[in-house]
């Protein structure tokens, strides 16, 4: 999974590596915005610092000319809910007068198993849309990870994209820096969109995306520290899941789902849908979960108000049925009345031992995955009758 840096963090990383960026300051209240704007000089952009795309369209970016406009923008953006994320901070940034908007990016092409550098003259818009509607507008250059990006590859991508000769060398240089950062910082994506071209033929990074491979954070201590800041925001339950160390995704429905292993949990979600229910979440307890972890999982799903019933589906390989049963008992025995019906299906390693331990007064037991899901969906429907 990727850890997403905020724009201001990514810009700092890029600027430290020598990529030209506009002058900017971070602010978290109206006074801070006004002070920053004063120092930078109008016009400035006020930009919400949340890690979602399409901030501009959602009202999270405003271009302002004076104190009055800056105050208005600050009041509307700071504290707003932007696509489910609370905006706590804004970046106040020098507005750049541009003649052109380019796109440069590095990502991992999983199909090829190789990094790929991308350049396009169609920057400033959603690049995924460009990729879909006009794929030839993006020049791509695959990179051998053993050698890194050769200078000629950066030049080739820039020429292939049709970037104007007057800035080609500078764009190639930014692309080279971007690849070096992507490689040395364990990036999953590094992107500048738009890379603005000014009337004086200078290039400047008006936005910055840097996503880091979470599996590599152990060797990126400086970025791991940034994660602390970057993690703020997001759904409350998803944050709780983070603390527990669960793979968790909150969804719209009312059938709670707990299981082990990504593929099997996804399958359980699909079966809930197949039997006419709506999944409330994806929750993977992972391999080898002990009783306490199982109890935490149940606690998580119970604390989602949308959930009306819960299916617990464990197929043990390294996870043991007896530990699962202990955890379920622990979680449920603390209630005088079970808040939401729980259906349990245990299979695989030590499932018989698990069934002996499991307090069947507290749960409904089913033998197969299909039956367990069908029963849970029926319970959820009963609640809503």
């Amino acid at each position, binding site marked *: *999974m990727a850890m997403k840096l905020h724009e201001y963090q990514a810009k700092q990383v890029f600027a430290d590596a020598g990529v030209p960026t506009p002058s900017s300051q971070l602010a978290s209240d109206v006074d801070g915005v006004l002070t920053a704007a004063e120092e930078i000089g109008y016009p400035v952009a006020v930009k919400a610092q949340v890690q979602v*795309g399409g901030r501009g369209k959602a009202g999270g970016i405003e271009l302002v000319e004076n104190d009055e406009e800056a105050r208005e923008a600050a009041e509307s953006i700071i504290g707003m809910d932007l696509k489910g994320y609370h905006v706590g901070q804004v970046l106040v940034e020098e507005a750049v007068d541009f003649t052109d908007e380019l796109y440069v990016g590095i990502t*991992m092409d*999983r*199909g090829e*198993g*190789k*990094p790929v550098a991308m350049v396009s003259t169609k920057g400033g818009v959603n690049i*995924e*849309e460009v*990729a*879909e509607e006009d794929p030839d507008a993006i020049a791509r250059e695959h990179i*051998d*990870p*053993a050698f890194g990006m050769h200078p000629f590859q950066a030049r080739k991508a820039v020429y292939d994209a049709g970037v104007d000769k007057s800035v080609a060398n500078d764009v190639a240089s930014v692309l080279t820096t971007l690849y070096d950062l992507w*490689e040395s910082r*364990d990036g*999953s994506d590094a992107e500048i969109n738009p890379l603005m071209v000014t009337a004086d033929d200078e290039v400047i990074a008006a936005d910055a995306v840097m996503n880091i*491979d979470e*599996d*590599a954070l*152990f*060797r990126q201590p400086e970025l791991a520290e940034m994660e602390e800041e970057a993690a703020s925001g997001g759904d409350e339950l998803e944050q709780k899941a983070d603390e527990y160390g669960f*793979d968790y*995704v909150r*969804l719209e429905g009312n059938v709670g789902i707990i*299981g*082990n*292993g*990504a*593929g*099997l*949990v*996804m*399958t359980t*979600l*699909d*079966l*809930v*849908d*197949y039997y006419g229910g709506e*999944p409330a979440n*994806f929750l*993977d307890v992972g*391999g080898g979960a002990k009783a306490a972890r199982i109890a935490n999982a149940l606690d998580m799903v119970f604390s989602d108000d949308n959930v009306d019933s819960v299916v617990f589906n464990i*197929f*043990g*390989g*390294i996870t043991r049925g007896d530990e699962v049963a202990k955890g379920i008992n622990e979680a449920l025995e603390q209630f005088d009345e079970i808040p939401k019906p729980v259906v349990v299906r245990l*299979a*695989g*390693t030590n499932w018989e031992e698990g069934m002996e331990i499991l307090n069947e007064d507290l749960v409904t037991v089913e033998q*197969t*995955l*299909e039956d367990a899901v069908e029963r849970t969906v029926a319970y959820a429907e009963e609640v809503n009758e």
Partner: protein
Amino acid sequence: MSVLVDDDTRVVVQGITGGEGKFHAEQMMEYGTNVVAGAVPGKGGQEAAGVPVYDTVHEAVEEENADTSVIFVPPAFAGDAIFEALDSDLDLAVAITEGIPTQDMAKVNKRLSETDTRLVGPNCPGLITPGEAKLGILPGNIFSEGKVGLVSRSGTLTYQVVDNLTNRGIGQTTAIGIGGDPIIGTDFVDALELFENDDETEAIVMCGEIGGEDEEEAAAFIDEHVDTPVAGFIAGRTAPPGKRMGHAGAIVSGSGTGTAESKINALNDAGVPVGDTPEEVADHIEEFIA
């Protein structure tokens, strides 16, 4: 017959002195796997799980004629462990480790194109030829000997589908968990080719999931090159775009690639029926081998 692993396979376990490595080395041996050595830097001369430990994989190959490695090395060192395996003239390396940095795997991927050693994984449960041997962490007792080859990106989903088969008396030639990471060694196409060329495999189950385009590539390969009947399953039909479903590789991108729908359509177009439930997959297989 079977593919990749049988009771002649001679296994070296990298990371055998760690908790997981030792436990699963013993489990593999209990199942009948011929574990001949361990390899752990600095632990040469010791013994673990009843077999000699060497400092390097090279020594394990020289001294014990190991031809296959199973890797239980922590993620920070696993990329290096795979490179060592690929440098040791083995037939097969199986990487169980979850959470290897993607850039390490990109470098491994490059090396794979220059060597004859096959890699399965990483982030996978391993593989098993029922009644003969297993490499990895799969629970042996749910598998049974038979004629169905199985390849899957997910561990526990493999167990679920195998359970559906075994409960009907349908056994397996070999089951291969290829792993849920974005960059893996053996992919669907490789596994399908192995099963197609195996005389005993009469039907194939392929369990895919959202993310990437491996299933679409597999469908194209089946259309051209596979005569053995294949039944499919795709997990993640209800996954919303942009949300990663556990596996690093299981994500539908914002632009709509990697969806279950695209994979199911591709498989159907190649003549592969895709079950709505694991039971339905077993139904299809039962028809194929009846």
